[in-house]
């Protein structure tokens, strides 16, 4: 199971963030000022937040 663990460690977050992005991009297509738009803001906002968090963080 070591192999699977390594895969998840490397690709886990990229896959989660990629899926979130895809959900955000599509959900807003089917909404006009409704819940789909709000979902898109969060789903697309999270990857932005991740960029900012790791990009700015001082160790």
């Amino acid at each position, binding site marked *: 199971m070591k192999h699977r663990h390594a895969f998840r*460690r*490397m690709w*886990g*977050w*990229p896959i989660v*963030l*990629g899926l979130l*992005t*895809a959900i955000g*991009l599509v959900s*807003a*297509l*089917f*909404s*006009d*000022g*409704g819940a*789909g*738009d709000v979902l*898109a*803001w969060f789903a*697309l*906002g999270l*990857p*932005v937040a*991740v*960029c900012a*968090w*790791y*990009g700015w*963080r*001082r*160790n």
Partner: protein
Amino acid sequence: MNSGKIKAWAWVHKWSSLVCTVFMLLLCITGLPLIFHHEIGHLLGTEVEAPKMPADTPRVSLDRVLETARAKHPDRVVQFVSQPEDDDGLWLVTLTPTPEPTEDFKSVAIDARTGEVLAQPKFDEGFMYVMFKLHIDLFAGLAGKLFLGFMGLLLLVAIASGVVLYAPFMRKLDFGTVRREKRPRLKWLDLHNLLGIVTLVWLFVVGSTGMINTWADLIIKYWQYDQLSTLLAPYKNEPTVPVAERASVQRSMEVAHRQAPGMKLSFIAFPGTSFSSPHHTTFFMRGAEPFTSKLLQPVLVDAKTAQVTAAPKMPWYLTALLVSQPLHFGDYAGMPMQIIWALLDVATIIVLGSGLYLWLKRGHAVRAPAAACRTPQQGEPQPDSSPAMKVQA
């Protein structure tokens, strides 16, 4: 992955990015103000708006609107008439010297309730126009568009190869690691990998939809050839219907609305223009649902008789083109999404810039391993011993 494969992917990544990076930087920078073009238009006062009136205020006949517009430019023909998506109190009439596609157009904004000219907006000058032209065709027409489309294709190749290379680079690192305390090159490499992998899906979608948009002219041409030519066979060899012989456009519009009940008008293409035929006034209707409002239903109305000739279904490739537009513009979920679009755009600029920096500083990577040849301490990360670092040189 063995080092030979990594080397090959690194070669693909290096060359696909090197060729397109400068153009992608240009597209990211010019695209940034374009995300907010409506808001900037408001601030600059170039955005035309119809004065507020009760929603049920009667409208003047579209024929009168056209007369007013033609009177402003008697030497020109009307090519298109459109209505802003969020403001049906306004008609925007586009006039050109001939029905042929051209860059030389004049616009007249007319109040749909009073029939008065509100403004003659100039869309072909100013800061936003320069940004727009640099973004879509580098002031080089179709050739410029297709060139940028090819650069977009290279970007997609660079993204795909970048994802493949992410694995060997990150083998010993946790997600999000940025090694700041070491050499600056290492910090920028980590930032490049981090921002690149996080913005991956967004950039792939914006890049591919941008590329599809560069083919718009060709897709529309193909549609005319593919779908309209059979519909128009009975009109073959007839010249473009002269203005004097045309039926009322107001009546044609009513007929089109009856043909597509529940839909709203997006724009009208006049006879002989690229979105119509020489014998038809074509009404492009959009749906009333959030998703269908992004799609268009053309209704071809005979310009002489004001009878509907056909309302052909949009083929899949035009649907793909239309759906790819909001996905590229980021204009479909209000201001928060525009801001997110801008932030992701900035992240992309950092990815491109750091990629360029890493290439310019590549010499250091060759020398660095020698300096790092001392015996590594227990538990210390050993970035330079990974095969990925070696192939960059």
